[in-house]
């Protein structure tokens, strides 16, 4: 479970919430990628809920857990919290995480989620209390560091914010965001040359990071470097327009993907594939979409087409367990069982908590009349029984 605490935050949280709102307006809280539902039924609510969360169906997971979960089971409470958080049901989520903490007072992931919710709702003092507690126990919890840094900055505690941002930067050395925060702090302290240096590093690290560019322009201007300030602002404006266009394309793609998933659920795989193709016309390098299109093609009986999509997805997301799994299934359908085994084993390695690759592996071994088939089937069943919330953060 400690993986939750040390997992780097994917993006700045206030924009996370605003982004969530936009996503919800487009799609509701169902389906943020992930594979379409319809896999074999799991033996427990926990396993099914976990599967639904993996499939990008938090609303269904939430409904399931609310109706059937065992009160007092902290794992199920945590899953409920995750499902609720992804649906924007922050009150429910907070209540579920408190339930987790009642049973497991030292549970850091639940504490971090509570801090995140308090941050999103601008209850900064409450969030700070939670974060102080977390960081006293786990000083390297990246999300806690990033949250506390931002809150301290907002509350004007520049020294505290700087301490957290520096540690955050050490913990996430490839992330431009903490450098951007450090740059802001240095500007506020009047150290414009120091700010320029740190913000230049941030921009070099991630040329698409808009906040770093804006802060760098501010620092240049204060340092009297007029031309550089103007150039940096022009670049920031260009980036914002580019990102806006990309957002619009993604929104269009999401719209078509929603239609596609609806059609998949209705068993109309060919129609679904057409909708996925529409989605891909707006967002052609989205590995989630390519995987889903591959899955639709596979369900339509066209494993060759499926493999085309999955071969395109693989270099874009080489560590995506879902892409590996579906590609393995497509290879299996095409008769390339040895190739399928490689992908399915890789999928199982990438997400050791997911029973689906093991079910597919069992089928592959069965086709080869190999004895591992039974072992994989048993492993899949065991994972379903032991379904644990571990690994959920990585699915976000």
């Amino acid at each position, binding site marked *: 479970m400690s993986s939750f605490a040390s997992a780097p935050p994917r993006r700045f949280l206030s924009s996370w919430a605003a982004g969530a709102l*936009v996503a*919800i307006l487009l799609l509701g809280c169902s389906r943020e990628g992930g594979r379409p539902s319809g896999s074999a039924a799991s033996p427990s609510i926990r396993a099914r809920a976990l599967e639904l969360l993996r499939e990008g169906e938090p609303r269904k997971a939430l409904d399931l857990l609310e109706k059937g979960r065992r009160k007092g089971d902290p794992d199920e409470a945590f899953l409920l919290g995750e499902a609720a958080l992804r649906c924007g049901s922050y009150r429910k989520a907070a209540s579920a995480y408190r339930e987790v903490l009642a049973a497991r007072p030292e549970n850091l992931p639940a504490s971090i989620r509570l801090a995140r919710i308090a941050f999103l*709702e601008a209850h900064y003092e409450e969030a700070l209390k939670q974060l102080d507690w977390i960081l006293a126990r786990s000083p390297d919890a990246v999300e806690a560091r990033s949250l506390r840094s931002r809150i301290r900055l907002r509350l*004007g505690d520049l020294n505290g914010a700087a301490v957290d941002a520096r540690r955050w930067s050490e913990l996430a050395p490839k992330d431009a965001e903490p450098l951007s925060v450090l740059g802001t702090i240095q500007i506020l302290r009047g150290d414009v040359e120091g700010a320029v240096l740190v913000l230049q590093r941030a921009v070099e690290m991630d040329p698409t990071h808009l906040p*770093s560019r*804006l*802060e760098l322009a501010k620092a240049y201007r204060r340092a009297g470097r007029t031309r550089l300030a103007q150039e940096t602002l022009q670049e920031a404006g260009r980036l914002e327009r580019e990102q806006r266009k990309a957002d619009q394309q993604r929104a269009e793609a999401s719209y078509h993907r929603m239609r596609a998933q609806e059609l998949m659920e209705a068993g109309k795989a060919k129609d679904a594939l057409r909708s996925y193709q529409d989605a891909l016309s707006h967002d052609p390098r989205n590995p989630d979409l390519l995987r889903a299109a591959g899955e639709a093609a596979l369900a339509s009986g066209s494993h060759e087409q499926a493999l085309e999509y999955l071969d395109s997805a693989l270099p874009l997301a080489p560590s995506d367990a879902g892409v590996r799994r579906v590609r393995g299934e497509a290879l299996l359908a095409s008769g390339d069982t040895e190739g399928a085994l490689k992908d399915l084993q890789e999928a199982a390695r990438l997400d050791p908590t997911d029973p689906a690759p093991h079910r597919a592996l069992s089928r592959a071994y069965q086709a080869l009349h190999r004895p591992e088939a039974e072992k994989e089937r048993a492993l899949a069943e065991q994972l379903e029984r032991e379904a644990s919330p571990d690994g959920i953060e990585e699915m976000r």
Partner: protein
Amino acid sequence: MKARRLCLLLVLGSLTASACRERETPPPAAPSSREKGGSVLLEEMTQRSGIDFQHFTGATGEKYLPETLASGVCAFDYDGDHRIDLYFVNGAPLGKGRIPSPPPTDHLYRNRGDGAFEDVTAASHTGDLGYGIGCAVGDIDGDGWEDLYVANFGANTLYRNRGDGTFEDITASSGTGDPSFSTGAAFVDVDGDGDLDLYVVNYMDYRIEDNKYCGELKKGYRAYCGPEMYRGSPDRLYRNEGGGRFKDISREAGIADPEGRGLGVVALDFDRDGDMDIFVANDGMANYLYVNDGKGRFTETAFASGVALGDEGRPRSGMGTDAGDYDGDGWQDLFVANLSYQPSSLFRNNGDGTFSERSFPAGIAGPTQLMTGYGAGFVDFDNDGWLDLFQANGSMLDNVQLYFDNLTYPEPAQIFHNRGNGTFEEATSTLAPDLARPCVGRGSSILDLDSDGNLDLVVSVAGGKARIFRNRGVPGRRFLEVLLEGKRSNREGYGALLTLTVGGRKLTRAALSSSGYASQSESGVHFGLGSDGEPQLLEVRWPSGQVDRIASPGSNRIVRIVEGSGKAEPVRPGR
């Protein structure tokens, strides 16, 4: 404008900001303890007002976008009796929606002067039938009678005030019937020729027949689409050609950005270089700040000025906006109400062509984080000489609670009391508990409806009854209300900067046309004077460059200043 450019260059060239900043007063000290004693200022008087305006959204379940954006309200004296009347913009059936009988129209209410209003829609020949979002008021022909522009989803309407209590629709002959999805407008003299031009804010390239399904595929979960689902739509600028005719100069003026998704507009000389600049709050993308070169050509400078994005470096979803000098330094600052999970933006004007976001340190960010703000205004409710902030709220989703269990469709409005030290405290529950009753707030208008020197408030409600709030005032606090009459400048004096010296302080206020969300407040310029001393000097800098200085303009009265007269004549409402 040359001066402004030079100013900007000097600042960018690392000279100190003070080289360009005409700071008129030293940073103000925090005020003495307040005298309000926690007493209620604003109380609802909708029932007693005689205003029974019920907004029609035309909602059919198809979630057509205009349904959730409507509508605004304009406060102006249409009949010249020095009492402020109200025009409410209304919706209309959309798509397959049934047409009610009688069909919904906009409504004009006349202020009778006895605390009540009467509906004069039919008698005044107003009552536009389009799907209305916003409105704006300006005397386009300088005849002393304020004309009215209605921003619609579909063709807009321009009403000329005949001066006899009636209006005539001159849309076709004026050439201002922009058929886009307009959300608001502002009358502003962009070329300094003394007549009012017209800036129209457009939202998106949206058509009913292209309406998309957004939200979950579950019964009741369909939601209004976000702005990302449609292309933007360029704003328009119409130059006043005289004789009631306008010419579309959007392209040559440099404001026809096809990506814009505007919802709020405020026009003002932000850089004090003598010409009118325009700020546009955009939804889900960078805001625009158009800086005027003095000849009616604009350069978009929001990134350089620091008002494009939030301080986290990401775009917000701007709705309503207003300008005012909240910190008493003589420069007009900006306020933008945003979508939920984004704080409202308070941008302090640094006086050097740049702004700094102060939402967090000013205490505005936290309390607005979960609100979807629309109507927005700087307003000195307690007449202490410090501009407070008002925000009308209401989610854009009528089923938002299905998606976010801590949000609701109706939301309480908010008042933030200016502490006088650059910070605000939320004071809704003490100053205006009636405002805390949630509603789906949209447009808002500030006016002194009973001419008692205390600023009152009107809030339009999407799909509900408009709400009227009367300000009881703080005993002992004085005021001065200034009506402007331009001669070389536009008739209302829009764009003028007024500086009043009182009790050792200098209060700077701007004569604004449109502000807030899709709305306009009364055109008079209001000064709260606190309790100490009489004002010593009032200086009016007209858009023409004319400066009038009036010694001892008096207090607790409404005065009219005619451009170039150097005099403040008392005005008695009802005459």
